[in-house]
């Protein structure tokens, strides 16, 4: 067993190999006691990340730190190792300090590499580490949790990223969303497309067309396209046969509609924006009737942004559930 303590300015780091959870808890309070100044612990959430490899942990931690200002709290990264290895836990605890409006603010990152049998009981590691009175969200960084995973019962919300899944898993996600509060980062990331496209129907000339949508055409990566099509058909009450899919690099959706003997198309598509940014542009063929283009700049770090969006709405998302249910109808 080896332990080390390092302090970088306001930050304290503790590491231990083959440690017990009690030592991790002692390290958490020890790092806080070691600071001379009193500080507020900013906590609105416990965010647990379950990752399959070091790369995933790094990607998740980066996203978590980037959203720290919006959702400060305790971050617990779990890296379960193959069950055949001898049981043991390697841990790292980092105390982050920052000054916000003159107040020192602390938050903690805990990282556990879990080997052997304990990897089947991650819930038993998470429960003692979570902060009381704030929600626990568990993020499976890639893939889907096993429906029998006991960690699901410790989660107030389950975060997944459908963009990391196969199309064949639509049914499994829909089933998971029926049992648990599921926050899908891929769905959260599509909010700008939904916003600008829905906004196109607010112009008076376009309003009659919302009830007259007959066809939905989507393109882009598999899951964003599936979810956009599922969203449009479920909201507008269209059958699966109304959807036409085509491949593409970025998400796009086009709705064809009829009203008063006229036909119009409403579109939302990702495009390059100024200075290397990306935007979503929405437009319709009703420009002559007063409809205008709408543009929304996409966030520079989509993963962190989607995570922040998901955590802002920590409840069951009925619209998402219905979009998933509809997507089951036309997924391959």
């Amino acid at each position, binding site marked *: 067993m080896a332990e080390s303590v390092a302090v970088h300015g306001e930050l304290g780091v503790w590491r231990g190999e083959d440690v017990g959870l009690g030592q991790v808890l002692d390290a958490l309070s020890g790092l806080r006691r070691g600071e001379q100044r009193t500080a*507020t612990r*900013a*906590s*609105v959430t416990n965010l647990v990340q379950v990752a399959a490899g070091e790369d995933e942990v790094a990607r998740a931690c980066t996203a978590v730190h980037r959203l*720290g*200002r*919006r959702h*400060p709290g305790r971050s617990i990264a779990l890296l379960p190792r193959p069950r055949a290895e001898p049981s043991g836990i390697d841990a790292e605890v980092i105390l982050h300090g920052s000054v*916000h*409006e*003159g*107040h020192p*603010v602390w938050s903690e990152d805990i990282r556990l590499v879990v080997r052997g049998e304990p990897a089947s009981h991650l819930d038993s590691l998470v429960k003692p580490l979570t902060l009381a009175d704030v929600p626990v969200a568990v993020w499976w960084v890639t893939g889907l949790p096993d429906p029998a995973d006991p960690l699901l019962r410790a989660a107030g919300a389950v975060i997944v990223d459908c963009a990391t899944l196969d199309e064949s898993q639509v049914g499994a996600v829909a089933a998971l969303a029926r049992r648990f509060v599921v926050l899908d980062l891929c769905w959260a990331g599509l*909010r700008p497309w*939904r*916003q600008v*496209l*829905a*906004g*196109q*129907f*607010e*112009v*008076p*000339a376009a*309003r009659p067309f*919302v*009830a007259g949508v007959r066809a939905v055409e989507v393109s882009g990566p598999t899951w964003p396209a599936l979810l956009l099509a599922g969203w*449009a058909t479920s*909201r*507008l*009450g269209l059958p699966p046969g109304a959807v036409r899919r085509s491949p593409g690099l970025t998400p796009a959706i086009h709705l064809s509609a009829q009203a008063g003997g006229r036909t119009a198309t409403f579109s939302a598509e990702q495009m390059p*924006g100024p200075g290397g940014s990306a*935007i979503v542009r929405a437009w319709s063929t009703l420009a002559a009737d*007063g409809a*205008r*283009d*709408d*543009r*929304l*700049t996409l966030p520079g770090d989509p993963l962190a942004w989607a995570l922040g969006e998901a955590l802002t*709405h920590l409840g069951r*998302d*009925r*619209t*998402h559930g219905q979009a998933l249910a509809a997507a089951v109808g036309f997924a391959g």
Partner: protein
Amino acid sequence: MTGADGNPLLEGLDTERRAPPCALVVYGASGDLTHRKLVPALEALASDRRLSPAFALVGVARTPMSDEEFRAKVLEAVPKPSAAWEALVANARYVAGGYTDDATFEQLDRVLGELDEQVGTAGNRVHYLATVPEVFAGVAAALGRRGLSTPRGDDAFVRLVIEKPFGRDLASALELDNALHESFREEQIYRIDHYLGKETVQNVLALRFANAIFEPIWNRRYVDHVQITVAESLGVGHRGGFYETAGALRDIVQNHVLQVLALTLMEPPATIDAKGIRDEKVKVLRAIDVLRPDDVAIDVVRGQYERGWVEGAEVPGYREEEGVAPGSRTETYVGMRVKVDNWRWAGVPVYVRTGKRLPTRVTEVAMEFRDVPHLPFASKETRGLGPNALVLRIQPDEGIALRFGAKVPGQAFRVRSVSMDFSYGAAFLEETPDAYERLLLDAMVGDPTLFIRADEVEEAWKVVQPILEVWSDDATPLARYGAGTWGPREADRLLERDGRRWRNP
């Protein structure tokens, strides 16, 4: 707006706080308030998708300008405008003309009609008077003459937003209201006190009415007295000319201070909505004991700052400021003892102070509680113990502090006051919307909860009117205080007389 409004695609997009299609007509569009506050607030609302794609900004001012020049000026007001705002600015129009000229409103009527046709503003208008108060009545009358104060259509709305000051005294406030009511119904009028748009002022309601532990002690039985401080470290700067005609009583006490007082002391409303809250605020304002002229000298301190040091810099006295008369008697400080004569607060003094060139910028409400009936400790053991206090800090460091006694660690039994401090900034790191953002959206959505009703304005003027009348006599003493101090000695004596002292925020 959700599916119920005919657009099922909006469902799940958190649109309940989204403005409906409308034209926002800003009078004084070439002025400072528009570019410093209103346009940045609108840009923030646009980036947050709170404005409808069928939103149009219409500027009205005397300065001649084309639509294109106005759009360019609007875009310049924000350093990095969002794409969503740029798209909405394309709808913006400008009308040049005098604020009471019928020709201006004829042209405005035509422009608004075009926007209904082209942009889909649906006959909805919010008229925002970002002008000097002298033209409020004139604009309202001109709108009325042109028929622009009445909605054209069953579902359309027309609202009028005005900024304080709402009159200079009780008589002029009533006169203004009468003038506005000739063209607009009261429910169409939104009077802004931007203080009410501050997140932490609204949070007074959350603290009081969402928690079971505070309300039972929020009364005369437990509260010894209340202190309300609205302090500014700045002087009058370039506003000397305006301030000479206003003074701290009109500028701060009549509105900000009395609004904060009303929210803090009002009875719990049945519902947190416009009527519920404003009805209760009015009741508290009515319960304030209006001073008799003889009592003004006893219960109110009028002060003016002299040269001194603030935050490490030497600053001039008020009478040395630009635009201020050398012998000015305008007050830059008011200290007051207010009595609220109702069942809950009878006998609990509310000490109010506001001033310029005080040591720091702070707004807070402190409830100081009564002592315990019997202190079972030796007096030497409780030397560091003060009364319990609950402090609601409104700005700049928004939060709540609770002062209570705790044992000092060690063998001896010594009790000392400690402060349990909650800071919003540290708990919720999320940016809070600017007051104008909140209030502009409320005006467009049609939620008047955070706006001031005519009867509130009237009751607030009734509180300060006797003081204005007494002070109009030059014989009233004017206490002087050094810039960078907490006000004149006379203000300290106001509390010392009652065996109390001001807190140092």
